[in-house]
């Protein structure tokens, strides 16, 4: 399969746009999932996923296999598209994705996932957008650090370091939450 993808991306890079449909088939669910992780909303995810793939197609000349894998490229477009989406929303504070919103402001949040998202919101919105994306890409999207590094435009070692610090924050947040729970129960 990796070999097939290589052929597809080579052809795409050479301007044979028909092969983009195969790449789309390979990546649409992953990209949609990633966008959903950052927006918590089905309709927004669909709109942005459409925008991402059409953007990738229109900008095929900018893709070069020498600079990285196709997956890293399309994830990079996805990340930037989500950031742009929230930045144009003109919130009072700087928003990179739905995690930066308070529960009250995240009105579009899908009911099905509300509970799960709220569970981790208090940890994840304490992280920077960069830390959060690395956590999402590593733990939820299960991407290797090599690819995460290409997406984020950083070195692998740097990504691992950012991840470990982010996780440490999450861990601390967890301990604090446990403490809070204990205090509440002791009253």
């Amino acid at each position, binding site marked *: 399969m990796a*070999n*097939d993808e290589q052929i597809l991306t080579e052809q795409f890079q050479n301007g*044979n746009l028909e092969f983009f449909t195969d790449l789309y088939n390979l990546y649409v669910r992953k990209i949609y999932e990633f966008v959903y992780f950052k927006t918590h909303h089905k309709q927004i995810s669909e709109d942005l996923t459409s925008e991402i793939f059409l953007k990738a197609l229109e900008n095929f000349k900018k893709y070069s296999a020498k600079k990285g894998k196709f997956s890293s490229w399309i994830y990079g477009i996805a990340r930037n598209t989500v950031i742009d989406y929230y930045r144009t929303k003109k919130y009072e504070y700087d928003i990179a994705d739905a995690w930066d919103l308070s529960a009250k402001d995240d009105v579009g949040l899908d009911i099905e996932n509300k509970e799960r998202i709220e569970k981790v919101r208090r940890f994840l919105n304490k992280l920077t957008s960069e830390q959060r994306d690395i956590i999402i890409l590593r733990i939820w999207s299960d991407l290797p650090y090599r690819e995460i590094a290409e997406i984020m435009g950083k070195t692998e070692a740097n990504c691992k370091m950012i991840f470990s*610090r982010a996780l440490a924050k999450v861990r601390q947040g967890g301990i604090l939450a446990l403490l809070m729970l204990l205090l509440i129960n002791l009253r």
Partner: protein
Amino acid sequence: MKKETSEKNIKGILDDLYKIDPFLEKYEESVKNAIKELLKSKPDVEIDDKFIMELREKISDKIEELRYQPQKKRAFFWQMFFSQKFAYGFGGILVLILLFGLVFHFINIDKTRVSQIGQETTQTGFKKIALGDNAFGPLKVDNLQAGNTQAVGGSESAQPSNDTGEKTSGTVSITRPASGLGGGGGMSVTGTAPSVMPVCETGDCGTYYPPKYVYVGEEVTLDQNQVEVLRKRNKIEYSGSVSGLLQSFGFGLADINGFEGARIQSVNLVQDKDFGYSIYINFDEGTISIDSYWPKWPHQQTTDCKGEVCVATFEDWPNISQSDVPADEELISIASSFAVSHGIDLSFYGQPEVMKDWISSVPTPMRVGEKIMQPYISDTISIKYPLMIDNKYVYDQSGSKFGLSIVVNIRYKKVSGVYNLYLQDYESSMYNAETDFSRILKIAEKGGIYGYSEGARTIDVEIGTPEQAYAVIWKYNTETQASNMLLIPALVFPITKTADGYNSYITNIVVPLAKDLLEQSNIPTPMPLILEKAQ
């Protein structure tokens, strides 16, 4: 299984973390809990299949739209026979890989032979293997008709020489007087015979007047006594194992593997989508033809049926008028964009030309009763990409440039066919060249090697200073029952002036320089072509 995967994931994450930050190992339990918590909280993402399909459609439309935008010309080696998308599915990808492998195998084929004889590649993607002198046997053919037809040939044995390839290029050089060569190959038009016959003149109906070609060009000296003839290589053999692939082609009905030594000779692929294509690949000849896939293109619907006979009315399928025909630039853009987006390497070809010779044959609108009947104009128009070898054009015996044809459907402004696309892979062999220009001229003044210009009355047609080019000739081998394509250095004389009142469909006279071919006998009298009087 999910739990095992999850544990495995967590372990992997932790191992990576500890390498970066061993300090975290102290807090393994809480770190593990944090990761577990994150994993448990991963949102359940359901993607709508309808959304996926609709977006795929949008992407297909976008691809079509982008095709018509000029793209940067790529000079990459034509590594695949073609680059158009196959049908979806694993089977399509398998064929893709097979073809990719076939081409790479082909490139490496005959390595030992090449090292014995010497190989010369003069441009990217163009391959030429030098053989000994007269390796293709006698070039002269008997009972040929003008144009692309079979020829009865002699032995085709190609004996490799022991020469390591230190031959001259064999191109004929034309030395000119100080004034220099003038003129050049004119516009080529399609035509099927070198002779012209006027329509009935008053009192002279049905009389045939052959043309008499009169040379008005400059003096030319031929100073090479050998020319390099090229023969297109056939029989591209893939010796790799395809047993696994063939087995799946058997549908379980037969054991394809049982057919020992079976090889793929040709493949036909179709696109099951609107305006899809049918792609025919012939491995024996190294050719690809692309056609519109009939079931997926709109066709004339017939409504006026009487029994089994149906006739399409004008309302069903409006005629195309001359004003519907796009400008040349647009037609060329459609054709070239298609070529570029499908990886068709255009670097072997010269500037494209729109073949509009049919326009002169379209009658003007006619009044029939109260109706104005528009002339019939074909839905399709050809764009010719003339083949160039060593910066020289290739002409067929009717004087038209030979090359790649991309057909555009005017009604839908889409490419509906690509023809004469083949691997630029040749063998070459040196043959004796004619050095007496006067002899060449005699043949040119007759209308070429198939020309005939005798008669009580002739029509004067002037021809100018020739250009160096190649002539394409097909030679049939009765033993192998296959035709071989030969490219022979030639002089091409442009027609510069015709007799008053008559149009000629021929604009060039082609005379090959290989002496062997000029000595051929039994040149048939070609059928005269009825011309229309110029308006």
